[in-house]
């Protein structure tokens, strides 16, 4: 399996800087992390996360690397998305309501926080189920959240194994080399930068990601 250090070596080779004198390993790694974040913002890395429903609690926090929440199930049923404007028009003081949740909103919250509207009346069980299907945690009276994550932290150490299949290694290498080679300064290399940008774009297009 490829490590982050292997990918840094690839970037250095493309930039004809094998000793890292023009772009240090740290600089190359940071650039690769930036590329990972850039890809993550496109919502490519979906996750499914279980959260315990708690009586009278309307705000729920997902891991801090959450980029965007797309769907929420409560007690095994879909909740509808609503903005705070929509909820304001529907009823006054909706934030005080308590009964089975019908809506979820991420409006005016940090990206990893969602609000159930109304807040649930009962708490779900946190005891794992056996056999562990559909999930190891009990979905009854609890939440299942479909969201995307930023995988930046998975490539923050040179000994980390690259967490996705190798097609994305090439994308990351080419885009990191593109951004490094176009930096203003003594080492700017526009032909290599342009080539790497186009190669990264070609890879992304074939992987079904619009540029």
């Amino acid at each position, binding site marked *: 399996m*490829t490590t982050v250090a*292997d990918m840094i*070596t*690839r970037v250095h*080779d*493309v*930039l*004809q800087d094998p000793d890292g004198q023009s772009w240090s390993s740290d600089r190359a790694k940071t650039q690769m992390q930036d590329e990972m974040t850039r890809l993550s913002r496109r*919502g*490519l*890395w*979906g*996750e*499914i996360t279980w959260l315990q429903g708690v009586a009278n609690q309307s705000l729920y926090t997902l891991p801090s690397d959450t980029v965007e929440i*797309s*769907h929420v*199930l409560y007690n*095994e*049923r*879909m909740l509808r998305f609503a903005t705070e404007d929509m909820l304001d028009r529907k009823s006054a003081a909706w934030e005080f309501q308590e009964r089975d949740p019908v809506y979820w909103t991420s409006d005016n919250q940090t990206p990893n926080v969602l609000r159930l509207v109304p807040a649930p009346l009962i708490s779900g069980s946190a005891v794992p189920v056996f*056999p562990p*299907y*559909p*999930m190891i945690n009990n*979905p009854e009276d609890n939440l*299942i959240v*479909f969201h*995307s994550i930023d995988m930046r932290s998975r490539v923050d150490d040179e000994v980390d194994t690259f*967490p*996705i*299949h*190798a*097609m994305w290694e*090439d994308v990351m*290498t080419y885009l990191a080399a593109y951004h490094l080679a176009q930096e203003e300064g003594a080492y700017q290399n*526009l*032909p*290599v930068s*342009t*080539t*790497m*940008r*186009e*190669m990264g*774009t*070609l*890879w992304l297009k*074939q*992987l*079904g990601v619009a540029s």
Partner: protein
Amino acid sequence: MTVNELIQRIREKLGTVQFYTEAEVIANGINPAQRLLCLLRPDALSQRTTVTLSTNEVFVDLRQASIATWQIRRVVLATTTGENASRSNGDFRDILPVSLNWLMGRRDWFTQKGAVTRYARQGRFWLVFYKRPVQSETITLIYRSVPTAFDMTDLASEPDIQSSYQPLLADIATALLLMKEGAAETEKSVRILSEIFAVEHFDPLRKAIDRLKRQAAQNEVVEARA
């Protein structure tokens, strides 16, 4: 054709340019060449794997089931990996792809139990099946696969892709390695790649390099006048 043989061919094609280490030829030449071939000729490497869907199981993590998947082609309720297909609990049918939004449009989809008829993708990692199986089912995933990457420890290995494509790998790898050398070599790379794949894939690169060259020529004129 082994990796060693590929390296030899690439060295011959690179000619006098001999400052590529073997490790670089593999990491920035052969490995991405295999993947580019698979991206632009997806039929070069298809694979199948079976997944057991336990009773009530609806989520399958592709990172565990088959990390080499880059494009799902078919999902079949049955075992179709070998010569003879076998049914799953008497059933044999395609499980049809739907969008996650289609699935989420059915408010109670997660509670529905019965025959597995649809699947959706949650990002690049997850498959979500509908409905919940009432008994354990065997499913075959048929997918475009990422070829196995090589490193310096397995120079005697052969590529996963079928042998008729293997001679092309040396050309593609040579083209990819030359790209770091500058505009003239990149033009040569585009020529090589355009002979192997459809020209339109590399048109944007060709045009971008042309623009750079025009710009450089204009700059030279301006500098000469100054």
